[in-house]
Structure formats: C-alpha cells, structure tokens
C-alpha cells in the first residue's frame, strides 16, 4: 500500500515528464542566451581572420595602411584620410551634441515646469530616438547641404551625427542629474544661491562623471554610423585627410566602399578598417567605463 502512495505522490510518470520538460526548457533558454555570445565570437574572429589574410596573403602593410590616404589601386590604399575624417567628425559632433544635449537635459530636469510643452518635448524625445539614422541623413542633406548650400562637407556630416545622438545624451544626462541628491540642491538654495548658481556650482560638478560617461558612449555609437554620412556625402575614396569644410569619407563609409567592391583585396582592406574602427570604439567604451568606476563611489 505504502509504495503505491509513494508512487502517486513522488514518482508518477507525469512528474517524470514534468522534469524532462523543465530540463528541456532550461536547455533551450540556455542555448539561446549562448547563441548571442557565440555569434559575437564568430563575428570578431571572422573580422580578425579576414584582416589577417589581408596582411599575410595580400601583403597589406599596416604602417602604410595607417598613414596613406585612399587610392583607386588597392595595393596603395590606406585608411589615414578616413581616420582623420572620423576624428574630426567626433570632435565636432561631441561639441554640438554635448551643448545641445546637456543643455536640454538641464532644462527638462531642473527648470521645466510640468506643462503641456514640457510633456510634448519629453514625448518627442522618445520618438526621435526611434527615427532611423538614415532619415537624419536626409534631413541634413536637404536642410544643410542643399538648404544652406554648404555642399557635402564634413561639418554637415557632424551635424547629422549630432542630431542623431542628442536624444541619447539627453536621456543619460537626465539620469545623471536625477542621481544628484536633493539635499545638495536644498543646501545650496538655503545658502541663498539662485537656481543657476546651484546648477552650475553644485549639481553639474556632482553629475559630470555620469554626463561624460553617457556622452562618450553616445559618441562611440556615432563613430560607427554609416547611413547618415552616405546620405550627406558622396561615396568616394578620399585621398587626403579633410578639414571640417572639405568633402570627406569617414571610417565607416570607407569600409562600405571597400566592402562593396568585388575584388578580394578591397575586401581585406575593409576587414582591416573594421579592426581600426572597433579599436576606436573599444577605447571610447573603456574610457567611459573607467570614468564611471572612478567616480561611482562618490555621492
């Protein structure tokens, strides 16, 4: 009798199936979560492999690659002009996006009254963050490149990238400002400071590590953006490093030009370009993480 009860309670076939189902489910979920990691490894390995083949079999000279401008002939082609263009883009984008993004966030977080206009601005931010990057390119193409007649210059590309990352910077800056305890603000107001004095001398210094972290992460996203630059500029291979008012081909657009070519030599140049691009992004992310860890314990 007792064994029968045991069976019913703990050993029924149903429970066996339940257990199996659970194991299966865990297996599926675990495999799924590993899938992303495996793809990431393959992706990085593929890029490294293709770049390696380029160096070994196609005799791409890394020194030449980093110091020469673009060329029609893959034998002589380099990445230098594209690197300089991207650095210029980042510098100009950083200045514009930082001013507008941080300024907006301060307004929304510290000054804005809870009115319909404020809510409209906030709702619009979420919408802007979902606009495809290629559309920002169209906006700048029509409004700046042709509207103001600047032509396809680097500065116009920077404007497109800045508009693209402003919503990201606003959101991360708002978070950083929210993390500043209200006690500090009250302490400042009670000392007879105006709101602006409080923001400039107490709130911003306390929030600046978070703001910088967010800005750098946003820039790391911008440096890999290709579509808006293609809309703004002309796809071509730049020989000489550009200034802000020159036409340009930045790292990602140069990679696209190379990757779209049928000759294998260009293909490996693209891989090497990707290595450089990823190295830039990695560095920027590392700086951001460093900043965050360095200042996290304060406050």
């Amino acid at each position, binding site marked *: 009798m007792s064994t029968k009860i045991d069976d019913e309670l703990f050993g029924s076939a149903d429970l066996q199936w339940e257990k199996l189902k659970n194991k299966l489910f865990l297996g599926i979920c675990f495999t799924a979560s590993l899938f992303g990691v495996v793809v990431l490894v393959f992706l990085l390995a593929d890029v490294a492999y293709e770049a390696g083949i380029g160096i070994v079999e196609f005799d791409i000279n890394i020194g030449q690659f980093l110091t020469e401008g673009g060329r029609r002939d893959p034998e002589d082609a380099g990445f230098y002009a594209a690197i300089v263009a991207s650095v210029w883009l980042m510098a100009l984008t950083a200045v514009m996006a930082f001013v507008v993004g941080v300024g907006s966030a301060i307004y929304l977080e510290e000054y804005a009254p*809870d009115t319909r206009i404020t809510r409209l601005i906030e709702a619009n931010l979420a919408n802007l963050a979902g606009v495809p990057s290629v559309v920002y390119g169209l906006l700048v193409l029509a409004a700046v490149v042709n509207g103001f007649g600047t032509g396809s210059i680097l500065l116009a590309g920077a404007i497109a990238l800045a508009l693209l990352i402003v919503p990201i910077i606003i959101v991360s800056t708002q978070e950083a400002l929210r993390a500043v*305890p209200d*006690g*500090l*603000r*009250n*302490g*400042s*107001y*009670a*000392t*007879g*400071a*105006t709101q602006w*004095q409080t923001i400039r*001398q*107490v709130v911003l*210094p*306390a929030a600046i590590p978070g703001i910088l972290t967010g800005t750098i992460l946003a820039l790391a996203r911008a440096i890999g953006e290709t579509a808006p630059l293609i809309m703004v500029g002309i796809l071509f291979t730049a020989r000489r490093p550009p200034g802000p008012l020159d036409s340009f081909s930045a790292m990602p657009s140069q990679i696209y030009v190379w990757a779209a070519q049928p000759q294998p030599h260009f293909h490996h140049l693209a891989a090497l370009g990707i290595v450089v691009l990823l190295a830039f992004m990695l560095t920027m992310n590392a700086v951001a993480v460093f900043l965050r860890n360095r200042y996290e314990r*304060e*406050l």
Partner: protein
Amino acid sequence: MIQTATETESCDNRSTRPDETVLRASDLNVYYGDDRALRSIDMAIPERKVTALIGPSGCGKSTFLRSINRMNDLIDVARVEGELYFHGKNVYDDDVDPVALRRKIGMVFQKPNPFPKSIFDNVAYGLEVQGTTDDVDIDERVERALKNAALWNEVEDRLDESGLELSGGQQQRLCIARAIAPDPEVILMDEPASALDPVATSKVEDLIEELAEEYTVVIVTHNMQQAARISNKTAVFLTGGELVEFGDTNEIFENPDHDRVEDYITGKFG
C-alpha cells in the same frame, strides 16, 4: 506691530534687555495640495535667542521652519496664505526675492549635506554665490565661520580635503559653518542633531547656544530634553498643524497652560 514677545517676562539669564522681534507669523497657513499643514499660526520669534519648535511628527513644525526662508517655494504643491514678517516686511510680498531672503536667513538640515567639494569651498560657497570676490576676505570669513562652528581646530590643516571625508558630526558642523559664513541674521535648523551620535549631538548643542549670542536661531527638534536644554523659547505644535502653546521654555516645560501640551511633554503621547 511689535507685540507678544516683549510683553512676556524673560527668564533668560543671558540677556536682560527686552526682546526684539525678528520674525513674526500672522495667521500663517500652509497647504500641500488640499492638505492643510499649518493652521493659522501666530508667533513672534525674538532676536538672538534660541526658539525651539517641538511636536510629534507630522505636526507641521518643519513646514513652519521651511516657510520662514521660503524653501516651501521649491515644492510644487505647497501654497502659503497669511503673513510672515521679517523685520516688518512680509516675506511673501511680491517684491521679495526668495534668493535675497535666504541670504539673510541661513539653514541647516536634518541630514548633513556637505557639497562634494573641499572643506574650504563648502564654507566659501555662500560667500561666492553672494558675490564676495576678494580672496583675502573669503579666507578670513571661512576661518571665522569654521571657528564659530567649533570645527576649525579639527580641519585647520586639511581644508583642501573633501567635505565628504569628515565624520557625520563634523559634516553637520561644516554645514553650520557654511550657513553662518555669509553672516545671516537668522539660522534655521531642522533637527540638526537627529542623525548624529550622542557625543556629536552634545557638541552641536553647545554650538547652538553659542550661536545665539550672534544669531537668531530657530530649531526644530523632536527631542524634548534638547529643547529644554538649549532653547529660550519653545513653540509646541500638535497634530493638524496647530500651534498650541508658545512661550518661555521654562514655563512650557514646568507649567504648560494646556493639558494636551503637558501630556505631550510628559510623554503620554507623541
């Protein structure tokens, strides 16, 4: 316009001259949205004395304190009716700038809130926002404020360190130094010792008594012994934002007019 305080006999042994009124509330009501946090308060706070505001939590004593320097302005839903005179000028008049008002009335908070700046910069902060640009002047006044806050000896040789490195009690005295550096007339204190240990508390209490020689001090406390020890005047608020009794501290603690106040003080509730 001058009334109340001068009429009562002062038991204060520190000063025998008649009290001058610095702050006077007249039919002051404060609302948070639809809730009435203060009911028709009338009170005259004397100059260079310690006035304690006591009462159970939620009785409106902190609200009253914050309405003096218009910190309630920073709360969206707060609304003030009635008058509060600072030297005969209603601080809720349209032409009063709360920023200018707060430069005359300093404040110390319950939780020490030093800025993430150096000790020196914390104390100099008020001077800087109020437009002092002379470095020598700032140096002197920072030193004087730290001395008055009884902190100078402890931080003299590490003024460049962050204010956050100090202990809780030191941080609170730093905040007091920050409040007195611009030389306000009144210092408001919102339970300044409640977050501190007993040793730090007694230091802050000593300090408050000394401050009353130069400043008018209004202090909110939930600790009745503390009120009895350090204040000259006591105001008892009871639930509902009512000021039930206001008078000399000795009178209130020894012979209160109202039974409810006696019950509260002897610990029957609250």
